[in-house]
């Protein structure tokens, strides 16, 4: 039947999170994806769409057709006109756009100024989370402040110690702000503007040098290690480094403010559809508050779960899917547009056991978890045995907010017993646990502070 999609098998040894080491492997998957079955046909179409864009697009992304690369590329194009790219290229300042709806909130656009300032190439930064700018002396609390703002979908401005590709530290007056869709209130992107703070950066030269010296010698003998440690220590004693405090001058403040305003001006004037805004619209009806749009911070948690699952909202008519994971789309061959807004029953087909379907319905009504082995069908009508685990998931109010359904293709597993009810796989339970933790704190307005100064 050719049931296994090649790109659904993440390398088993990808122990690190994808952000760090996964990229290269994704590039490596090119040939497999292109030669794949009709399921991957969907993905190829996306590639062509995203492939024609210009200068700043990493060739590795346009060439691969890997779905993450596609999404990174498509993210900019989906929201803005091509003319924006040219307009932004004229801008001298450093900024990035990130997409919180893609796994790990990766950079989907980096300005020339950003690449110049950090020493990285576009290929090296697109598709990666901004945390590569952090280094040994970066303040942990500052990182928390940024995370906190992302979580609460609000703007923030901090001074943060960042590092160039060459390991040189510099103070960055970092301004981050959400870009909201006017249509449904979702966060389309985050804008991150980096304004290097003058005067301190140059002191760091010798620190960097000594640090490198230490690293190199650590593979040699103890005596040379001691020597290098002395060098390191002496070097440090000589240099007055203020890695704790950063004096931000009015000029830098103003520069940052102008940059942010300029970017928002461009984004707003050259966007597609209903448009974008820096303030979340309070009059959005069908979106966020209507329970159809999963907010960006919940999305960030959900995209980390690299398994096939969907969330369905029982408070909307016919309990439609509000989120479908990447792995679910790969397993079933549907696109996100195909499935979001529809009830899960489209997976059933002529040979699906009615009794099993009924059992699921009863459990949902009783707000109880259940596990079944059910015959489901892909978009191309090929059947597969689905070990399906369904569970109610509660919001911070303690009420059922969603049902989560976790799918596992067990077609190749010989299952002697024909009983409908069975036990879930440990992986499926892990996914349910992760969804519970995310939904409890992040769903809707969830556990956010009241916004005092938006």
């Amino acid at each position, binding site marked *: 039947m050719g049931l296994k999609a090649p790109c659904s098998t993440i390398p088993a040894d990808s122990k690190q999170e994808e952000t760090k080491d996964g990229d290269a492997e994704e590039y490596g998957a090119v040939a497999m994806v292109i030669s794949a079955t009709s399921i991957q046909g969907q993905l190829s179409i996306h590639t062509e769409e995203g492939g024609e864009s210009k200068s700043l697009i990493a060739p590795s992304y346009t060439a691969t057709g890997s779905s993450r690369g596609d999404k990174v590329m498509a993210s900019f194009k989906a929201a803005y006109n091509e003319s924006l790219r040219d307009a932004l290229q004229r801008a001298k300042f450093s900024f990035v756009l990130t997409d919180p709806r893609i796994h790990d909130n990766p950079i989907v656009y980096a300005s020339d100024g950003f690449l110049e300032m950090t020493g990285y190439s576009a290929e090296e930064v697109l598709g990666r989370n901004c945390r590569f700018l*952090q280094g040994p002396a970066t303040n942990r609390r500052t990182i928390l402040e940024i995370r906190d703002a992302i979580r609460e979908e609000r703007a923030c401005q901090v001074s943060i110690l960042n590092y160039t590709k060459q390991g040189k530290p510099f103070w960055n007056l970092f301004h981050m702000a959400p870009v909201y869709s006017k249509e449904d209130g979702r966060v389309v992107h985050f804008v991150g503007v980096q304004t290097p703070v003058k005067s301190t950066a140059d002191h760091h030269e010798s620190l960097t040098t000594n640090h490198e010296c230490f690293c190199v010698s650590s593979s040699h003998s103890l005596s040379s290690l001691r020597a290098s440690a002395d060098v390191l220590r002496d070097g440090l004693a000589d240099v007055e480094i203020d890695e704790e405090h950063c004096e931000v001058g009015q000029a830098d403040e103003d520069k940052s403010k102008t940059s942010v305003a300029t970017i928002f001006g461009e984004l707003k004037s050259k966007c597609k559809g209903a448009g974008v805004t820096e303030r979340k619209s309070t009059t959005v009806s069908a979106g966020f508050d209507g329970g159809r749009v999963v907010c960006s911070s919940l999305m960030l948690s959900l995209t980390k779960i690299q398994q096939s699952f969907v969330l369905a909202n029982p408070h909307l008519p016919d309990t439609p899917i509000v989120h479908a994971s990447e792995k679910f789309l790969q397993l079933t061959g549907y696109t996100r547009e195909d499935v979001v807004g529809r009830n899960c029953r489209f997976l059933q087909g002529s040979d699906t056991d009615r009794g099993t379907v009924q059992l699921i319905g009863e459990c949902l009504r009783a707000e109880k978890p259940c596990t079944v082995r059910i015959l489901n069908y892909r978009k191309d009508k090929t059947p597969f045995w689905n070990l399906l685990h369904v569970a109610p998931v509660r919001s911070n109010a303690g009420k059922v907010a969603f049902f989560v359904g976790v799918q596992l293709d067990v077609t190749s597993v010989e299952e002697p017993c024909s009983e409908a009810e069975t036990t879930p796989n440990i992986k499926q339970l892990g996914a349910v646990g992760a969804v*519970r933790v995310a939904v409890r704190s992040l769903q809707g307005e969830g*556990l956010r502070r009241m916004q005092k100064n938006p």
Partner: protein
Amino acid sequence: MLTIKRIPTLVSIYQDTVDRPGCERSCLGMCCIPGAKLPVYAFPGTSSKDHLSDSDDCIPDAGGDLFLNEVILAQWEERLSRGLFRYDVTTCETKVLPGDFGFIAQLNEGRHLKKRPTEFRVDQVLQPFDSKKFNFTKVGQEEVLFCFEMSTSEGSGYSERMVVGDSPNVVVINVSPIEYGHVLLVPKLQDCKPQRMDQESLRLAVNFAAEAKNSSFRVGYNSLGAFATINHLHFQAYYLAVPFPVERASVKKIASSKKPGGVKIFELTDYAVLGLVYESNGVLEELADCVSQACIALQDHNIPYNVLISDCGRRIFIFPQCFAEKQALGQVDPDILDTQVNPAVWEISGHIVLKRREDYESATETNAWRLLAEVSLSSERFTEVKEMCVNASLKEESASFQLELLEVEMKHFSPKVTSGKGNRIAAKGLLSDAFAEDCCA
């Protein structure tokens, strides 16, 4: 002798069971543990936790290996489906109180037991282990999620069933959870250590926090006299995907290592409870050792304290406290005591579990602040305690610096040798004086 009366929390189904020798159930006592097979998670022995690898909880696809975060979540969910908990904590309402800090309140009516209060001695931080009282050898094996052991190789790994060693580090559920994934980490369970901090155990707890790679997963510790109720060495941990107010609080640096990425010590400047914050982007064992030295100094001076390990083990908070002492002396307002909130590590950090609906409905940042202000040492007393802690930590920092060098050398010459205790001790003895000037105050 100072005592307070409180109702102990039920952490195990077997807490009130009286066992005869030969308990006839699978417990964690010496009657059942030799030869028993339990799930085991092995964490990498050499922990050079990369400061960049801090992205949270990736739950890998069904084909991949199991990571700690996933093992905890999966095993906890499995125990939930078996009905081992006294209540489903996800049905408990929770909210953020209006205000800048964002205190988190939870209404938990099920946690409270309708039992007679027990008397707890609160003026002695170190008390000997008492095998007659409840301890973790009495919990059932079904309450065990897994054992958490240092791997003999580089990587991590999970096995569903393995014969456990003499005295494994055990992760058990708390049957009265205050949030999803609430577990207790009991270092070397069969050693029956009292609730007393030591270097090795704190390293283990920091490794537990770091290996979970999830900033929503925090590890806490309460000393005796600071609302620990079980005198058997243990840490607590659970998931909550919200920053705790104390993590947002402003800090002022008071000491740091000159080493890039080395340990820095801060004090909280605008929080209701005075406390210290230890932070590092570098080797977490060094950070842990600085903190355990401070904790040991506190307990040796009979000062009750709480510890919060946050940010995947990179930020550790220490709060010396005096609430129980004040309570015993009758110096705490009755309306604060009426709420029956016990200010342990989670409450101090800003996550407050309330037992009565009226308290939940009327909770405000001001109320929370008032409660926590009673927990804090006075600023005069804190200054003394702070100096003591920092002095204790700085001694450790220089030793750790040495330790790291020596370990690099050992790895180079004999890659198969895992870092043994003997080597660590030798390292300290040999080199601690030479590098003492490496710390600046």
